[in-house]
């Protein structure tokens, strides 16, 4: 199973809470392009089976494989935030980054055919718009550390009080 080794923040989805409404994709594509188009969203909902629904965006891996894979040095990673940046003047849409990403977090713009990826809405004053819009609080901006802390806390509560 693919795992992220990141110390960086990324957008995580709690699959128990996700209802598959796609509002995250509409908010994302509007924020990034001014249009509503799930093909341009940097976060994607997945309905793998009837009741298996989640959403996936960039996991900001350390030493990100997509960056390593890019043959044209179009991708770079911000050492402070882990955010992956794609230089559209260098990218030629070859798709190697997509091959390298275990999370399917990179997509190709259907018109320009160039790669696009989540940047955690670093320019938005109120943070990632998908997180803001998620009606069920399934999406959170978090780190692997915080995720494990939450898991431990949930476990502790369940062991003492029983399942919710």
């Amino acid at each position, binding site marked *: 199973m693919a795992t992220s080794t990141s110390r960086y923040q990324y957008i995580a989805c709690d699959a128990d809470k996700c209802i598959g*409404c*796609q*509002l995250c994709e*509409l908010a994302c594509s*509007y924020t990034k392009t*001014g249009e509503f*188009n799930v093909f*341009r969203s940097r976060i994607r909902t997945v309905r793998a089976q009837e*009741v298996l629904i989640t959403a996936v965006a960039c996991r900001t891996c350390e030493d990100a494989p997509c960056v390593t894979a890019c043959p044209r040095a179009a991708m770079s990673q911000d050492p402070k935030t882990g955010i992956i940046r794609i230089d559209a003047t260098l990218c030629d849409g070859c798709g190697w980054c997509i091959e390298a990403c275990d999370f399917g977090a990179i997509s190709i713009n259907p018109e320009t055919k160039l790669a696009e990826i989540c940047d955690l809405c670093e320019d938005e004053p109120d943070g990632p718009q998908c997180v803001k819009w998620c*009606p069920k609080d399934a999406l959170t901006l978090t780190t692997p550390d915080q995720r494990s802390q939450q898991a431990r806390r949930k476990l502790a509560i369940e062991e003492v009080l029983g399942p919710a």
Partner: protein
Amino acid sequence: MYGYSGRILHIDLTERKTWSEDKPEEWYKLYIGGVSMAARLLWENIEVGCDPLSPGNPICIAGGIFAGTPVPVGGKHGMASKSPLTGFIGDSLSGSWFSLALKRARWDGVVIHGQSDSWVNVFIDDDRVQFRDATKLLGLNTYETEEAIRDELGDDQVRSATIGPAGENLVLFANVTNDGRQAGRTGHGAVWGSKKLKALSIRGTHGVTVADPETLMKLSYDITQAAQGPHTAKYRIYGTATSVLKMDRMGLLPTRNFREGTFEHADLVSGEYMHEHNHVKTIACAQCPIACEQMCSVKDGPYAGAMTGIDYECLFANGPNCGISDIRTVIKLVDLCDRGGMDAMTNGVTVSWAMESFERGVFTKEDFKCKKYPEGFEPYFGNGEAAVTLTEMIRDREGIGDLLSKGTRLASRITDEERGTESYKWAMNIKGLENAGYDARALKTFALGLAVGTRGGCHNRSAAYDPDITGETDRFTVDETRGRVAGRSEEYAAVYDTLPLCKFIRRCFTGKADRAGAWPAIAKLINATTGWDFGYDEVDLIGVRAHTIKKAFNIREGWTRADDHLPYRWQHDPMTKGASAGYVVTDEELEYMKDLYYEYKGWTKEGLIPKSKLIELGMDDVAEEIGV
């Protein structure tokens, strides 16, 4: 033009050709989308008087203004064709990603004409249309069909509306499924089957733009937040199945084919019980922040593994109404219907008709021979395995399933002719469409709403149970206000069905669900999307026109005042138990209320529409054809 592309896609299955029709902005302002636009497309494209299963009956699909934008619950599409069950308008709504894909492909609507020689999957890929061989999809259930197409085309973003085996077999109440949601009632699936159309798939890659995105984002965000509040808690937590106990307590829960309105085992088939024992996951339709669909599964017993979304209407029909108290059996029945691609409401009410007919001796065990039970079986009320077997037989049109696949009106007519019986007296349909889960003997305003409804026994097009249940009207009696109340209620519902917006959002604009609370907010959403200048009155007229075009369609297909009827049982057999015992709707009451209703609508005493009324609504061409 924002919100619309201005284009309708026509697909002719006989000739395998397509063309694009341009529509002016004024046309969109009149018919908007959803059921209204679908009905209008049907009005324009049908061969009047045709057999619903003939090539002359087109399938008309309309998207909505808000599809593909973040406007909550705005992702729905409307579907219209002449109903093989009723012979009148068949109009359905489905929550869908399908409508979002349609919008991104830049089509406002689709009209499918003719009849294919061989089974076909029509694939709309933005501007391109492919006629793909669907032979290998035959026999697949609705979920499998959708998945198979996605695999074949290699793209998760392809959205399909499909029919299951029931549609292929021309079960008259077969429906059309997309993403686990259905254009559920009036038998569209049979119309698809008659055209050998197994699926309609869409991939739309274009972005959706609106007139004032900033305002639309703000409005949508606020509604999304409000939709997490107390007004929608009932939908979010239990879904509509929470109605079982409420209806039971009011004596309105149809039980054993509408004989009674209270079920002694209501607790065991309640939304609350299911939530505790069978709930797996809550899911939403496209762009819906409420999420009312409660996916429920069967964990043990003979039906283990069955899983589907269970809502009140399917639950009442296949549970209490068949006398079934084991929720696992109910889930199995709805699962069979959803996967088989047929209307679970009509299925339950048809099975309950067969059960009553068996108990009354119209049918005997012999009549129920099938492969599974070669000696036959005894479908008494409460016999869950019998209901399951009957549902499978209906889907496959095996044995007596062939008769039952025609719905209660035709099945009772055929049976009574052949056997000299009177089973029509417990055939619970209006205009041929089986009734929803509200016993209207003691909901007098709703009884009117149902009787005059353009598509038959439907709770979605008339919302007149609302004043009855909230005590705004006295539900046990009749008075001079009812024509207006029923008419207004129907026009109110039609606004939502036309935009379309799911009605579950109705209290999330301002807290008040009435016109004053909702229309100004809806006008703002329309204006931010389209750039139009709609106000309260324009929004109100959306519903009036939507209803009028459907009514006009029925008139052109031969509707008369006598078609606005109620089931025999509701007029003659009072219930004996519960809070609504002792009531029927008498002929005098019904005819009096119909008079009031036609008068409110500004129609003639015979229920026909004056030319002037239609011209007033901007429907001049309709006035010419059917105005009096």
